[in-house]
């Protein structure tokens, strides 16, 4: 199986290739430059492995949460490639990507992933290790970190990943007894196991159904009175 993974949802931009068991990846922290970097990364990772786009079996993309524009860059590039080459796609949560990395690098059993969501909020997702795969426990949410209650989230003995833990380090680590890792940003390399699993389970869709998961949908744009 040959799977390309692309992600532009956060400050990091990354691509990875699963080529019948061989894995390669490119990762760069390049805020505001994703639209310049993503396609050249994809071309490089494919040509380095001597693979043409239409030889792939599918494309996986970081579906968010993250920067709205960044998520859409990853999704719309995926749409263009997948529609052009008739490839199926699967979306993977950016929180799950980091949780997967914690499983692979730290043998983590339970992981709490948080991405700084701006506007004094974090995107939060709690995961457990199920046979080596990060599996979501609660729903992904956008929440003010000070509103996290110990009774709602059993985070103790979890491993933490993501920029949410960096931005709100004191607040969060004083409330929750977690093991903070240096995993801060999602890397497409760790999307691959989750993507392969999804493809194997037949969970892929066609290009136009590659869509962002913004998590923050209850947005604060003001409607006209009476609407």
């Amino acid at each position, binding site marked *: 199986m040959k799977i390309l993974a692309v992600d532009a949802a956060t400050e990091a931009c990354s691509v990875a290739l699963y080529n019948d068991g061989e894995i390669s990846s490119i990762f760069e922290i390049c805020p505001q430059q994703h*639209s*310049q970097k*993503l*396609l*050249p990364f*994809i*071309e490089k990772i494919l040509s380095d492995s001597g693979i043409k*786009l*239409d030889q792939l079996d599918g494309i996986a993309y970081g579906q968010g949460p993250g920067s*709205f*524009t960044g998520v*859409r*860059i990853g*999704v*719309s*590039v*995926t*749409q*263009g*490639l997948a*529609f*052009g*080459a008739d490839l199926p796609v699967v979306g993977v949560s950016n929180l799950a990507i980091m949780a997967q990395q914690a499983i692979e690098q730290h043998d983590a059993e339970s992981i709490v992933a948080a991405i700084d969501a701006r506007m004094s909020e974090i995107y939060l997702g709690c995961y457990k290790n199920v046979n080596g795969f990060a599996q979501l426990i609660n729903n992904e949410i956008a929440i003010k970190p000070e509103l996290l209650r110990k009774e709602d989230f059993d985070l103790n003995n979890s491993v933490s990943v993501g920029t949410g833990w960096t931005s709100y380090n004191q607040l969060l680590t004083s409330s929750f007894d977690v093991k903070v890792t240096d995993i801060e940003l999602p890397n497409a390399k760790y999307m691959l196991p989750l993507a392969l699993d999804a493809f194997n389970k037949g969970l892929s869709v066609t*290009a*136009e159904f590659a*869509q*962002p998961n*913004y998590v923050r949908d209850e*947005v604060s*744009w*003001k*409607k*006209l*009175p*009476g*609407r």
Partner: protein
Amino acid sequence: MLILGIESSCDETGIALFDTNKGLLAHELYSQIDVHADYGGVVPELASRDHVRKTIPLIKKVMADANIAKDDIDGIAYTSGPGLVGALMVGACIGRSLAFAWDIPAVPVHHMEGHLLAPMLEDDTPAFPFIALLVSGGHTQLVEVKAIGDYQILGESIDDAAGEAFDKTAKLLGLDYPGGPMLAKLAESGTPGVYKFPRPMTDRPGLDFSFSGLKTAAANVIRSEGIILAGSKSTQNEDAPENVEQIKADIAYAFQEAVVDTIAIKCRRAVEQTGIKTLVIAGGVSANTELRNKLAKLMEKHKGQVYYPRHEFCTDNGAMIAYAGAQRLQKYGDRDLLIKARPRWSIEELPAI
């Protein structure tokens, strides 16, 4: 040469297939008006969210409608700017990536060049040189067009675009977004001469425009007549005048008359200044009947002619982007894989072809 055009610069997703030999093969437009009406204007984030849902399905539809396979397409034109950056980004990402997948060149298109070339999609096309009046919700410009890519801006709005002034005044009158066309409709039942609005910047030389004052003038009349309008529904005081609907129509009439007169005065100056007798009008406001009639009379007087695109190509659309892209593809089609979204981009920066 067959070009796929993608337009996503604001609140409309437009997709088209243009063939340099056979002309326009198919086009589709999805308008987000319903999405934005509740907010009284375009919400950029919601616009971007809609483009990422609609673009691929519309591409599939135009290809199916024209019975075109992917191997038939020679290039992809996408709107690169100017416009809302997040909205532009969606069309640019999809367009550039699709061109990569199909191994064909992509060409970033200037949205306003698309508009000014839109009349070229009709049977009776203007010859160069011509004066282009670009009037929409985002732009008001007079451009001297010597050839494709040889543009000089003669004048432009220093504040609100004409279409923006239409929409804002319509909002004051309690009309839903985008209220410009509804204001024009309301003006049909208005009485000439009841109100007189200024013709901004016509008392001095030059071809620049200013429309924000007209909105204020309308607001002043609305206030002095004791009409209260909030949001989308009119909520009147008990002592509001009985003929409030007529007053609104009269205001609409006077407003439209002032905008149309002002534009016509500037167009006359542009024609006299350049000696060019061909006028092209494009952009959403170019669908305005009063404006078309006034400019037709003006050009008749100058023994010239006015050209405009069919109604559906006055507003944003993919056909004009596919057409403009087709003109530029051979020289400026790129394979460099950079996704180009340029929210601010002057038409004068475009290279000639």
